[in-house]
Each structure stands twice: as structure tokens, then as C-alpha cells.
């Protein structure tokens, strides 16, 4: 089924739905050949506006091509981090801090060293240097002090994994325990224990905004209009404090790395499932005093990343061991408990928010103070604060906006990137506020949102003229799919006494800007193509869509194009695989590389046909010359055009430095803070058991502005996966610690990630095609944006069903029951 919205029908809330046999037959064919129950044709809606994509004239773009990594992964042939093995390899193990905050007084390592097979035992004293993307506050192994429960203190390499682990058990460290601080808001109060004495004592980025003598390592202000005046003049003001819990990525593949130092080459090689090979290469080179060319990062497949494999993590530990055991490979694989302790997390937040609107339903002002718990080290916290702070303007046009983002150190697990990068948290807060305002107005929350959403050409709160905003279409599609227009979004009671309601939320997110990408394409003389680039395949489909770009531009079959494994020694620079950036950025570089190939093919035709170069032109996979000369590119192998001519090597690069308008540090005003915005809207229906507080999701609708769906199936899967992940954050996941900062639930029984039994509801997906102009095919990022709205949409539905607002996630049954008991319908629950 195709979601069609004709140009004449712009204002109607109920949009027409039309079937397009093209897409339907393609998907049916797909469903028949691949038993993927998730791809029902009724799930996919594509806006017709651009008349392209599946409905356009493209031969591979917009088609649900089979994933390039699918067969490798289902047969077990794919190599993941823990599969890396070498002859004569050493096995590493780590002794982690049992305390969240303590001074290290002494080490006793004699018994550990005495374990048979132990080759090397290192402490922080043996591994100098500190690293960090913004503040170099982190050491490979703790020095003088431990700052979180699980911090690596001693690293051991041994002939067997068993010996290494046994030695860890024999490590003795004497500590003096210090008072811990575990809440980001409390950590900002005067007199709170200090996690770090002085931020400025560490090497740091030039635009560093930490405050010495406090736990604040980064501050982000955004100012637009006059919020105080706005609150004075507004008819309705709502003020609340929201909290989101810390969550762990819980990837199937644990944190893992293997390192080997080759003496003659003076080269360190790391095998790692990293999302950021070039970033970790640079950081490791700096840390170890090596040249970048002396550090080689070989990327394995990533068994789940979600941001958790973005930063350097255990690579410095294996690197340090490898430098001490030269010539031998050293592998370290965390176990699940270690991964919870010393992997990384999305930190919790405390969000204070005040929102105001007028009787006519127009937003007037919004002020947000967000305290991000970045854990014991700053890591990428400042970047989360910045990216999310800019997007915290919300999907709604508000004339007066004030945002203060605080990145605060605590004695908890260290934070890193997590799919959504701060936006699920902000969105949970401001979308709950939208529902509260709508209720005070007595207005349908959908109508209220539609009155305030950004449209193409609107000026944003940072002063940007927003291009290609797909919000209206997203909201309409979500409302239509969930059946919002029927008006039964309101609370109602079922025959068996359950309470039901619907909820919705919008989504906004940006991609980190500026950044850069590069692609090198080798065109073989049988018209097959090998693409070298360093965007990582972490399940999102990078290795599938990049070939689609190249194949489409060259006009050759998708099957002809493959991606080579990512290795910093061979593949060209890529910033990172984060921020939903690869499809768009690498896609742009890939198109340019393909165009470079076309240029060279035309040169060869001119030579082969002895024709004037000016007379040669390329169109959709065919090169035309004078006097009816013609070459179908995919058939070049049947000719001798390439024989002993200059080999064809296409090069394409793309960066966004030129379009970026660096935001003002005091107000973050910017005419172009990001190369592209992501837009989404989601809605759901829930059922609450008012006697136990148990929640069931009955139905879910997710509409995503994808620009152009390069691979329809990948897009649908990305949205479905994101909804499930967001649902899990909203309903189940929560890292718990005690007052001293000890992690209580570092295992998969007690840290509850949703199972298939928790996703027993229909997820209807609308892919809204709203092509962006900066990409030849109009692609927009898709990885993170759909994980932004779920917590907000589900909590809005649950709070509406209960009749009382729940101000924190996860929505545990205790909180739901409490909301029922304090709500206006409590008598019905008795």
C-alpha cells in the first residue's frame, strides 16, 4: 500500500491511501523469497511527492535489495571481534575497581604474577598518558584514584584465558573509599564530592566549557527571544522535572579487541569491531607516541554497536599489553558483567522544563535545563550536549526558547554515544509537556501539535531557514495509521476493566556537522566494482546502500558492486559511523567516485573509438559516441576498451565544512547548524492494568521522513528496530546502583532488555519520501531518528490512560500503579 498525499490535499488530516502495484509486487516477491514476517506490504507507505524511489525510474535505488552481509551472517562466515585468533596468541583479563570512588593506596601483584602462564601484569603506573575526545581525562588503567565501579585497574596477559582470569582473582589492591556522587543534579550542588579536581588540568578542546572545582565538564546554552517575558504573557504555563534512567547498549557482541605490535615494522595493529576506526587510530597514536601510519585498525563485523562501539574503550588496554609483549597478539573479550560495569552506557538525565502556550494553541515559550550524567569521565558527553542541545529546540516553532545543557561527571558507569544521542531524553520531556498543555487547553493533542510544527521555510530557533521539513506528513501518517482521527485517542475502559488510550510524539534530530567522507572505487574490466570506504556495517545496511548508490549512478547491476573490508591501512578516511550519517555522507562521496569513473570510462571510449572526447556522453549506464557508437557499461568486458589502458580508479570525497555556520558560543544562533535535520512522528495505543500497573502496547505507528528510501526493506527494519529499542528504554531498562555507586543489576536477568515476547504488537511503518536536495537521490539519515519518539509517545499514552502523569522512565509497574492511585479514576480501579 502506498501512502499518497496529493498536492491539492495539503490541509486534510485524513490522507488518501493508494495502492501501487509496483512496490507491492516487489515486496510480495521479497516476502515470498525471504521469510521475513516483518515486511508485510501493508507496512510500507511511500509518499508519492517525488515520483521516484520505487515508483521512480531507478534500477536499484528504492528497491529492497538483499543485504550484502546477509549470507555471511546467517551462515556464520562473518568474522566478529571475538572470532579473531592468531597462533601463539595471549589472552588478556582485567581487574576492575570494586569501588565507585576510592583512592588507590597500594597494589600487591605477587600472587597474580605467580600464576602459571602469566606473561604480563600492568597497572596505571605502567601505562602513561590520558585520552578523551574533548577532555583528555581518562587513563588506560586507573591512576591514583578509581572513579567508577568497574574502572579497569590492572590488566593481565597470559598464555591461556583461564590463567589470566585466575591471576585477576589474585590481584590485591588497597583502597581508601571516598564519598561517591551518583546523581547528575546532586553532583552540581555546592559541596558535592568532586569526581575530578580540575578539568583544565587535562589537555582539552579549544572550546572547552568545563568549570574547575565542580563536576561540570561541559555547558551548552541556547537562547532565542525572551523566555521570561513569554512566560509572563502566556495564558498557560506548565513546569515539571523529568528523569530518564541510564541504559546499557546490551549488544550481542561484547566489547572486544585484539592487538599485536610488530617490532620490525614498528607498527601496532588492532582488530576491533569499532564504529570509528580513524578516530581510534588518531587517539591511540597520540596516546602511544606513534605516527598515525604506524597504527593500523582492522575492522571486524560489529555485533551490535548503537553508539557503544564509537569511542576507544578496551583498545588502549590490549594495545598497552601488546606493546609489553611485542610480537604476540593479545586478545581481550569482556564478559557480560564486565560489559555492564566497564563498557559504556547512555547516562541518566534530570530535565527541568517550563513550557507555555496561549489559548489559541500557539506555543509561546520553553525553557529547559538538562543535567546529563556523563559518568566518571567526560567521554563524548560534550558532543551529546551540543548535538542534542541544538535539536532541543523541538519540532515545534516556539518564539522564545532557552536551553541550558549540563554535562556532569558522577561516580557512575561512563557514558558514550547511544543511538539517539540525547534526543530520546529531551523528547520524553518536551513531548509530555505538549500533552499537558493540550489537556489544559482542552485541545486534541494532535491538533495542538499540528498548530505548532515546523514547516519548510520556517525560521528555526537558531535562525536557520529550515529546508525540506517532513513533519506535517509524518504526523498525518502516524495519526492515520493509529486511527487518531476517529477521536478514540481519549481514555476509555474495556469490558474487562483495562484502561486504554493513545499517545503521540514528534521527533527531531540532527547529524554532527561538519564531517567528511571519502570513497575510492576500483572498476574492473568485467564491470564489477569494488568500493573502498570506511563507513561501518553495524546492521544498519551501510554495505548495502553504498553499493546501491554506486550501481545506480554507473547504471550497472547492484550485484556487480561490493564493499571491501574496512582497514585504515587500505580504505580511505571516514569520520565515524555515527549520527545517522553514513547513507547521506558516504552516499554523496560514492556518487562522486562513480562520476569520476564515468569520466574515465568516457575517456577510454574516446580513445577506443578514436573519437573526440567532447562527442562522448553518458546516460543511465550507456556511453554514447559519434556515428551510433554505443557502450552498455555493464557489458564492457565484451570489448577491449580497457585493455592496457589507464586503469579506472574513481575518487569521491564529501565534507560539510563549507555549508556549516559555526553556532555562536553564547546563544548557539546559527544559519546552518547541521547539514540535515531528521523528522519523525509516532503514535501508539496502550492498555494499562489498573490493578497491577502492567502496560501492554496494542498498536504502534511510526512515520519517518527518509528523504528517499534507498533500500525500502532496510528502512522499514531500521524503524521497527528503533521502535522496539525505544519501547524497551521506555518500559524496562534501567541501570540501578546503590548509594555508594555500586552497580546492582549488571546482568541480563536484572537489566531487562525487551524480548520478542514483549514486542507482540503491530508496528506500522510509513516511510515518508521527502527528498533532500544535497543528495543526488534525496537520501536522509534513518538510523537514529526513529528511536527518538517512542519513550515520549508510549508514556503519553500510558499517562493518559492512567489519568496521571508519570515523570520518569522506565514506566515500571510501581510507578503506573501509583499514577492510577493518585489519579482521578482511582475509584474505578478498586
Amino acid at each position, binding site marked *: 500500500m502506498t501512502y499518497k498525499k496529493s498536492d491539492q490535499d495539503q490541509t486534510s488530516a485524513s490522507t488518501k491511501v493508494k495502492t501501487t502495484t509496483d512496490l507491492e509486487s516487489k515486496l510480495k516477491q521479497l516476502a515470498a523469497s525471504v521469510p521475513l514476517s516483518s515486511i508485510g506490504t501493508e507496512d510500507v507507505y511511500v509518499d508519492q511527492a517525488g515520483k521516484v524511489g520505487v515508483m521512480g525510474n531507478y534500477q536499484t535505488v528504492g528497491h529492497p535489495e538483499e543485504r550484502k552481509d546477509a549470507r555471511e551472517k546467517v551462515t556464520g562466515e562473518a568474522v566478529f571481534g571475538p572470532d579473531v585468533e592468531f597462533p601463539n596468541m595471549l589472552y588478556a583479563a582485567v581487574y576492575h575497581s570494586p569501588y565507585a570512588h576510592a583512592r588507590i593506596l597500594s597494589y600487591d601483584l605477587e600472587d597474580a604474577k605467580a600464576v602459571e602462564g602469566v606473561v604480563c601484569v600492568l597497572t596505571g603506573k605502567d601505562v602513561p598518558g590520558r585520552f578523551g575526545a574533548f577532555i583528555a581525562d581518562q587513563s588506560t588503567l586507573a591512576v591514583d584514584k578509581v572513579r567508577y565501579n568497574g574502572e579497569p585497574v590492572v590488566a593481565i596477559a597470559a598464555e591461556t584465558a583461564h590463567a589470566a582470569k585466575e591471576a585477576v582473582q589474585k590481584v590485591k589492591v588497597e583502597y581508601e573509599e571516598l564519598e561517591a556522587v551518583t546523581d547528575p543534579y546532586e553532583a552540581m550542588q555546592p559541596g558535592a564530592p568532586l569526581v575530578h579536581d580540575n578539568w583544565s588540568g587535562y589537555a582539552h578542546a579549544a572550546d572547552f566549557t568545563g568549570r574547575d572545582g565542580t563536576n561540570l565538564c561541559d555547558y551548552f546554552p541556547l537562547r532565542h527571544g525572551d523566555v521570561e517575558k513569554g512566560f509572563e504573557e502566556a495564558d498557560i504555563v506548565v513546569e515539571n522535572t523529568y528523569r530518564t534512567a541510564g541504559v546499557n547498549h546490551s549488544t550481542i557482541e561484547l566489547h572486544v579487541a585484539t592487538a599485536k605490535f610488530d617490532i620490525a615494522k614498528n607498527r601496532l595493529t588492532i582488530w576491533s569491531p569499532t564504529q570509528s576506526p580513524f578516530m581510534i587510530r588518531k587517539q591511540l597514536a597520540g596516546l602511544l607516541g606513534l605516527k598515525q601510519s604506524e597504527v593500523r585498525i582492522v575492522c571486524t563485523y560489529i555485533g551490535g554497536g548503537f553508539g557503544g562501539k564509537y569511542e576507544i574503550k578496551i583498545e588502549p588496554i590490549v594495545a598497552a599489553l601488546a606493546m609489553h609483549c611485542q610480537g604476540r597478539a593479545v586478545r581481550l573479550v569482556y564478559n557480560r558483567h564486565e560489559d555492564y560495569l566497564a563498557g559504556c552506557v547512555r547516562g541518566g538525565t534530570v530535565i527541568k522544563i517550563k513550557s507555555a502556550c496561549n489559548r489559541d494553541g500557539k506555543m509561546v515559550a520553553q525553557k529547559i535545563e538538562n543535567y546529563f550524567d556523563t559518568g566518571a569521565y567526560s567521554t563524548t558527553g560534550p558532543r551529546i550536549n551540543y548535538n542534542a542541545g541544538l535539536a532541543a529546540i523541538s519540532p515545534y516553532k516556539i518564539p522564545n526558547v532557552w536551553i541550558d545543557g549540563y554535562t556532569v561527571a558522577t561516580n557512575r558507569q561512563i557514558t558514550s554515544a547511544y543511538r539517539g544521542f540525547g534526543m530520546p531524553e529531551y523528547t520524553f520531556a518536551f513531548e509530555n509537556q505538549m500533552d499537558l498543555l493540550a489537556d489544559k487547553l482542552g485541545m486534541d493533542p494532535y491538533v495542538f501539535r499540528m498548530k505548532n510544527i515546523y514547516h519548510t521555510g520556517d525560521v528555526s530557533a537558531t535562525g536557520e531557514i529550515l529546508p525540506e521539513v517532513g513533519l506535517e506528513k509524518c504526523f498525518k501518517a502516524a495519526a492515520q495509521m493509529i486511527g487518531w482521527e476517529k477521536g478514540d485517542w481519549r481514555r476509555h475502559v474495556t469490558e474487562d476493566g483495562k484502561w486504554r488510550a493513545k499517545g503521540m510524539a514528534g521527533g527531531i534530530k540532527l547529524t554532527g556537522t561538519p564531517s567528511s567522507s571519502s570513497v575510492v572505487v576500483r572498476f574492473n574490466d568485467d564491470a564489477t566494482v569494488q568500493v573502498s570506504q570506511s563507513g561501518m556495517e553495524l546492521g544498519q545496511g551501510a554495505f548495502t546502500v553504498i553499493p546501491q548508490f554506486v550501481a545506480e549512478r554507473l547504471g550497472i547491476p547492484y550485484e556487480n558492486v561490493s564493499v571491501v573490508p574496512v582497514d585504515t591501512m587500505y580504505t580511505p578516511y571516514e569520520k565515524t559511523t555515527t549520527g545517522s550519517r553514513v547513507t547521506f555522507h558516504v552516499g554523496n562521496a560514492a556518487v562522486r567516485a562513480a562520476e569520476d569513473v564515468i569520466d574515465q570510462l568516457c575517456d577510454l571510449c574516446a580513445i577506443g573509438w578514436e573519437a573526440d572526447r567532447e562527442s562522448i556522453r553518458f546516460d543511465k549506464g550507456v556511453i554514447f559516441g559519434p556515428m551510433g557508437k554505443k557502450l552498455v557499461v555493464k557489458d564492457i568486458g565484451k570489448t577491449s576498451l580497457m585493455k592496457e589502458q589507464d586503469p579506472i580508479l574513481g575518487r569521491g570525497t564529501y565534507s560539510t565544512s563549507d555549508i556549516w555556520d559555526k553556532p555562536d558560543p553564547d546563544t548557539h544562533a546559527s544559519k546552518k547548524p547541521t547539514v540535515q535535520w531528521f523528522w519523525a512522528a509516532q503514535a501508539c495505543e496502550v492498555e494499562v492494568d489498573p*490493578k*497491577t500497573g*502492567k502496560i501492554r502496547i496494542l498498536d504502534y505507528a511510526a512515520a519517518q521522513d527518509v528523504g528517499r528510501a534507498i533500500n525500502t526493506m532496510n528502512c522499514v527494519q531500521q524503524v521497527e528496530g528503533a521502535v522496539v529499542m525505544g519501547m524497551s528504554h521506555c518500559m524496562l531498562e534501567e541501570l540501578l546502583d546503590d548509594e555508594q555507586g555500586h552497580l546492582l543489576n549488571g546482568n541480563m*536477568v*536484572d537489566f531487562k532488555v*525487551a*524480548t*520478542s515476547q514483549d514486542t507482540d504488537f503491530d508496528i506500522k511503518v510509513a516511510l515518508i519520501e521527502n527528498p533532500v536536495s544535497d543528495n543526488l537521490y534525496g537520501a536522509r539519515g534513518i538510523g537514529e531518528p526513529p528511536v527518538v519518539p517512542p519513550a515520549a509517545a508510549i508514556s503519553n499514552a500510558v499517562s493518559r490512560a492512567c489519568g496521571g502523569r508519570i515523570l520518569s522512565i522506565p514506566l515500571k509497574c510501581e510507578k503506573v*500503579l501509583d499514577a492510577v492511585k493518585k489519579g482521578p479514576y482511582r475509584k474505578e480501579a478498586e
Partner: protein
Amino acid sequence: MLPEFDLLIPKTLDEALTTLAERGNEIKVVAGGTDVYVSMHGKYQSFPAIMDIKHLQELKEFSFAEGKGAVIGALTTHHTLDRSEIIRAHYPALQEGASQVGSVQIRHRGTIGGNICNAVPSADTLGPLLVLDAKAVTISQQGRREIPLKDFFAGPKRTVIRADELLEKILLPDNESRRSAYIKFTRRNAMDLALLGASASLRVDEDGLARDVRISLTTCAPTPMRALHAEQVLEGKIPSEKLLKEAGLAASREASPRTSWRCTEEYRRENLKAIVPRVIATALARAREGVGIQ
């Protein structure tokens, strides 16, 4: 990492019992290993020796006879109980318990005997077995002992089984017209421990009165417990909605759940008021219709 231990794999029951008589105090008996090995990996427990009994055919009896009831060998897996038509028809609470233990893999591996001997308050088969008037039969070189399950638990993770004994089998009386039900309340819908559980078993006589009422609670005390006050609320009465609610209140009062970081006592008591009436209602509907799980 598992600590080092002696692994003993007896070929016959006799051999197992002989070894246990000699050095039972230093031996941990393992069937599926789904609890013991996990605990050892987590360094919570270690033992000088492990006796793996999962191959002992003598502990795999599984039969049912009208009028006599069921004999369930200690090595019967949760999967077998889950898929058994007999269990489904006559002892639906046990089917509901066994079907919700851990994951599919764990249900294929884990056994009812292990679930009983591990004796945690959240064990999914124990609440159902209590309302089914189960008896445990232990065996040693000294002979057999028949112990009502309600007397089998000595405290959290402790039972009255001796170091020289093995749990041989579970006896369930033929419940005839009695029917049962189990509700497991969890935060997530699979692969979770019971935050709370409630089981009920009863029959309805010719006058419509509830008879032989048994109610048990899971994760509500240091051991799986019977809710005797709640049973008395219904025994010999016509079960009305009001009475079911009263039974829920009684169960909530007599339970002794604790507050931990996993859940508060207050919430657990509130929840019991909801799930106890529901589990009784389900058992009642089955008893009235004279059938098990459909």
C-alpha cells in the same frame, strides 16, 4: 570462569547413592546445571565435586494412572512437562509454571528436580506443586522417604534433603475434579524471574461450594508458601467476586514479601490483591468446566 572441581558421572543410581553415602557432604548434585553452573560462573558458589546425574534412567519415570495420580521423575525436563497432555489436562498450574521457566533452551535442559532442590522463592514449579499436594520422594542407601512438598523447604535455597540422598520423583495425587492455575507476574514477558506468583487449586461440589482449596504464593516469603488464610476464606463457600477479593486481601496480609532493589514490599502486597483473585477465578472456571488448559 568455573573453579576447579571433581566431576563425577555415575552410570547407575546405585553407584550414585554409594558415592553420596561416602562423600555426599562435598558433592553438589547437578541435573540440567542451569542454576548451579551459572552460580559457579558468577563465583557465588564452588564445590569440591559435582555429580552429574542427568543420564540416570532410574530418575526419568513419567506416568499417570486414573485414581492414583502422576509420578514425575526428578529428571523430567520443564519442556516435557510443558508439552505433556496429561499435565495440561489434570495439573494445568504445573504446565503454566513449567512453560514459563527461563528460555526455550533452559526448559529443555532444566528439570523439575533441579527446580525443587534449588529451592529459590521465585521457582516457577514450586507454587503449582504446593497447591497440587505434591510429595517428594527421596532415595538413599537407607531407603526412601516420602515428604510432603510443603515440609520440604527449610529456608531460602535450603531443603530437608540429606547429603546422602537424591530426589527420586514427585508424586501428584489424582486430582479428579480439582483444577488449578498459576499466574506469574514479571516485568518483561519472557526470560524473567517471577516478581510475584500465585497458584490456586480447588474443586466445586454439587452445591457449587469450593472444596479442597489450595492457594500458594511465589516470591512472597523465604520459601514458596501456602496462603492458608486465603484458602479458609473460600473453603466450603460459594465463590463470589467479593469472596475472591477477600481471599486476595487475606493473601496479601499473610504474605511476607520483602523490599529489595528489585521491588518494594508495598508493591508486592498491592499486586497480590490483584493476581490472587485472578488465579482463583481461572482455577474456578476450569473446575466448573471440568477441563484443564484449552
